[in-house]
């Protein structure tokens, strides 16, 4: 073999699935088509709370091409509700539509119309007459009839981290910051719609649906449909954006599967963009009360973080970001408490950096307020409070390079030229603001399994039911296999996104690269071992560097295969059992007994705010990140850059608006739910701060997909303050928030 594969891990290579994606050959959920397939169109509720009084199907049935109408009358008893993922289930909501006439949130599925064509199904849905018995609905926090409970009461496993006596220390502190913040409702809005295609053949169900969790879907559907999981296959080779929205099973999948079973034909659902706002999950709005007490020289003596999150009536979904915010800085006295507010809403779910984004916005804004109060530079304030040991339990970080990130970022940004006085930096009619913030994201690794087969022609196939949500999973898995087997990358075929493959965890919590690459490496090592033992070409002592050429000829025609399972640090044997039942036992972050695992970064934002119109433009965005070993700098950079822009978008644009009276969303399209366009973002720079973490896992990998968008929110708000002297504590920051800024 002419090409050597050494050093493929860490190499800046182009993604191996690129050609399929640029030619349109990559098939996403709704790109699959089956002979005899039918089309589904959803009818969703126009009220947020109440009951279906009656459904008149007459007009809908008359539409040519309509072949079926399915309501709770047809589905109740056939599809079971399931448990939330957080409660040990597989679902994103315990609200299972079509099991009763009850309406628990806006846009709940109330009927599915099936047509021979998409158009006939659509027309049938339009003509279906649904009458409701409407009851008053509570939209959010401020509604009188919501119910707020402490998270510790709602969930047995919830913990509110505390240490020392925060209140007394706060009262005695020389400097006190006592402020409230809020973050809005946001929707993932991946560009791929929430489509599903289901087909039954000989009692076996195949589901084509973009999923971040094919094994979880398989087991969840089995439970909901009352069938053997082995009779279900979930296929998700390409995923058109997920950001958490496809991590847990949503109600539509079992419904479409059940309809396909009753109908005896394949059913394809392509919902509309606005339906996607209510049939899947979202990031719920949060409120925060942060109190910081410090010495005059900036040392934290008290940190208190109370927060409230919205959830649905039945579910105790929560993100509880205090796990992170109580551990970011050294402080002897810490208090935290999370509460959840039940409103008449769909159950929220994971959305990129679920806990860290809203909670760090609050803490990192408050830190900036403390920097202003103490007159200490924001970076120096963080240095003063930096730590290598988390303050709640005194556990060591496996590695933490926060200040190295700040130093690298500050240098690239030119931070030393910053005039700290608000409004002091100008460019013509534009007020210039520079802000920064810390970012952090837990490194979690889960049990996983993988199979590798080596063929006599020197090609290898790697199989694991992992997911590539755009992150580059195909490529990094290929790189690890190439290096560990000693083959060129081009010789590796990576098969993922199929629940018939060896199980891998949910593509969530930025764990895929660490979880999957480690097990693939293990399978490759095992294969080499088998290979050399079989061929007697070498002793088992050192085979890692041996070329494969000599032994390939001896391989049987269909090659040889190795299978591996990996139990990462902090997991137990139980984790393997769970893995084979579609559960991901993520271990890491602040949940370990002996240590704490996080990736860190520092984010810098330059804003320009027009002194008259208050238009806000971002002119520079720089992030410096330390996240262990980078398997592929090109795909990693893409992730972090996308994350930075996501954070910017979250800070300045994104908000799902809710009509308080009806508890319904009203900006549910891409014209009014603003995400940045090409022209909103100019200079974005990603800096990798080298970091070696040998303890974290064999390959030294930390996750990074969700690290990028966390700190940006506070960095933007801090830059707004620096430009204008106005502290905006409620996201997103819109120009009308700055009207009072003197021009």
């Amino acid at each position, binding site marked *: 073999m002419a090409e050597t594969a050494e050093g493929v891990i860490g190499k800046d290579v*182009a*993604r191996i*699935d*690129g*050609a399929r*994606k*640029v*030619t*349109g*050959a*990559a*098939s*996403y959920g*709704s*790109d699959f*088509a089956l002979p005899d397939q039918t*089309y589904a169109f959803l009818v969703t509720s126009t009220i947020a709370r109440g009951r279906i009084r009656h459904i008149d199907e007459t007009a809908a049935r008359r539409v*040519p091409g309509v072949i079926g109408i399915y309501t709770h009358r047809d589905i109740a008893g056939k599809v079971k509700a399931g448990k939330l993922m957080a409660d040990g289930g597989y679902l994103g909501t315990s609200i299972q539509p079509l099991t009763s006439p009850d309406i628990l949130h806006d846009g709940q599925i109330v009927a599915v119309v099936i047509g021979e*064509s*998409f*158009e006939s199904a659509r*027309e049938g849905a339009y003509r279906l007459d649904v009458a409701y018995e409407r009851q008053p609905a509570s939209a959010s926090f401020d509604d009188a009839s919501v119910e707020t409970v402490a998270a510790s009461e709602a969930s047995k496993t919830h913990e509110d981290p505390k240490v020392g006596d925060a209140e007394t220390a706060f009262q005695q502190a020389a400097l006190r910051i006592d402020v409230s913040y809020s973050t809005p409702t946001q929707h993932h*809005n*991946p*560009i*791929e*719609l929430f489509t599903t295609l289901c087909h039954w053949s000989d009692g076996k169900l195949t589901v084509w649906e973009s999923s971040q969790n094919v094994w979880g879907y398989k087991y969840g559907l089995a439970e909901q449909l009352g069938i053997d999981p082995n009779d279900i296959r979930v296929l998700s080779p*390409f*995923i*058109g*954006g*997920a*950001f958490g929205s496809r991590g847990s099973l949503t109600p539509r999948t079992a419904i479409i599967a059940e309809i396909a079973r009753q109908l005896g034909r394949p059913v394809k659902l*392509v919902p*509309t*963009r606005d339906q996607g706002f209510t049939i899947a999950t979202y990031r719920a709005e949060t409120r925060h009360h942060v109190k910081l007490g410090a010495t005059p020289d900036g040392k934290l003596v008290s940190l208190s973080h109370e927060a409230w999150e919205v959830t649905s009536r039945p579910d105790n979904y929560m993100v509880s970001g205090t796990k992170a915010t109580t551990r970011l800085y050294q402080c002897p006295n810490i208090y935290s408490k999370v509460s959840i507010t039940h409103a008449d809403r769909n159950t929220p779910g994971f959305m990129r950096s679920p806990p860290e984004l809203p909670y760090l916005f609050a803490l990192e804004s408050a830190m900036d307020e403390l920097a202003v109060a103490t007159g200490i530079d924001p970076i120096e304030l963080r240095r003063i409070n930096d730590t290598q040991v988390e303050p709640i339990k005194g556990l060591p970080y496996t590695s933490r390079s926060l200040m190295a990130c700040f130093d690298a970022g500050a240098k690239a940004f030119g931070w030393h030229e910053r005039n700290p006085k608000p409004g002091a930096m100008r460019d013509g009619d534009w007020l210039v603001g520079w802000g920064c913030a810390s970012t952090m994201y837990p490194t979690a690794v889960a049990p996983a399994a993988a199979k590798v087969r080596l063929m006599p022609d020197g090609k290898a196939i790697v199989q694991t039911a992992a997911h590539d*949500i*755009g*992150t*580059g999973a195909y490529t990094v898995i290929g790189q690890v296999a190439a290096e560990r087997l000693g083959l060129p990358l081009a010789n590796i075929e990576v098969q993922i996104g199929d629940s018939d493959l060896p199980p891998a965890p949910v593509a969530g919590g930025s764990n895929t690269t660490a979880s999957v690459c480690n097990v693939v490496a293990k399978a490759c090592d095992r294969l080499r071992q088998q290979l050399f033992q079989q061929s007697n070409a070498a002793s088992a002592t050192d085979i890692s560097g041996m070329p494969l050429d000599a032994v390939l000829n001896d391989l049987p025609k269909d090659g040889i295969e190795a299978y591996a399972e990996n139990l990462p640090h902090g997991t137990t044997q139980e984790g393997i059992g769970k893995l084979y039942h579609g559960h991901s036992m993520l271990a890491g972050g602040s949940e370990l007994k002996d240590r704490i695992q996080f990736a860190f970064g520092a984010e810098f934002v330059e804003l320009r705010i027009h002194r008259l119109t208050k238009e806000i433009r971002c002119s520079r965005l720089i992030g410096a990140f330390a996240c262990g070993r980078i398997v592929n700098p*090109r*795909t990693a*950079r*893409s*992730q972090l*850059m*996308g994350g930075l*822009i*996501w954070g910017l*978008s979250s800070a300045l644009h994104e908000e799902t608006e809710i009509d308080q009276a009806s508890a319904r969303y009203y900006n549910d*399209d*891409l*014209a009014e739910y603003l*995400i*940045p*366009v*090409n*022209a909103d*973002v100019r200079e*974005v720079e990603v800096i990798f701060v080298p970091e070696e973490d040998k303890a974290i896992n064999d390959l030294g990998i930390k996750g990074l997909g969700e690290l990028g968008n966390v700190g940006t929110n506070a960095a933007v708000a801090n830059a707004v303050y620096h430009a204008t002297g106005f502290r905006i504590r409620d996201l997103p920051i819109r120009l009308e928030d700055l009207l009072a800024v003197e021009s």
Partner: protein
Amino acid sequence: MSGIHVTTKINGDEVQFVCEADESLLDVLRNRLGLTGAKEGCGTGDCGACSVTVDGRLTCSCLVLGAEVDGHDIGTIEGMAMGDELHPLQKKFIEHAALQCGICTPGFLVAAKALLDHNPEPTETEIRFGLAGNLCRCTGYDKIVRAVQAAAEEMNSAKKIQQKVA
């Protein structure tokens, strides 16, 4: 409803299909003709994932009825590569990591090609402007602009070499 008979050219080949009056070109491409490179992201012309060209002009296929394209030439992502040989834009998108999940990629490529067909040497602003009708939720915008710049450069220098040879 009786079907409407439509004769059109897609990627240079004559294609005939029958569609209903309320069927979008996007649905015709995806559901009737099996051309699934154009994606549906919104149905309202806001995301550009369904971009195709109609008589060389960049268009959202979700905003056109199948019936409207009778007698017109359609270009889709499936017609961009010459067999196995990728178009320079496709190569540069891969090289510059100008794609992540890839769902917006066909639309961006069709838009970028339409831009370069009309304006072979666009400025950065013209590129950003020409691609403003396409949303990328993985937000790889900067890399997309760099990829288009690099492709334009390569195509122009190739053209110059050809001219010299001629």
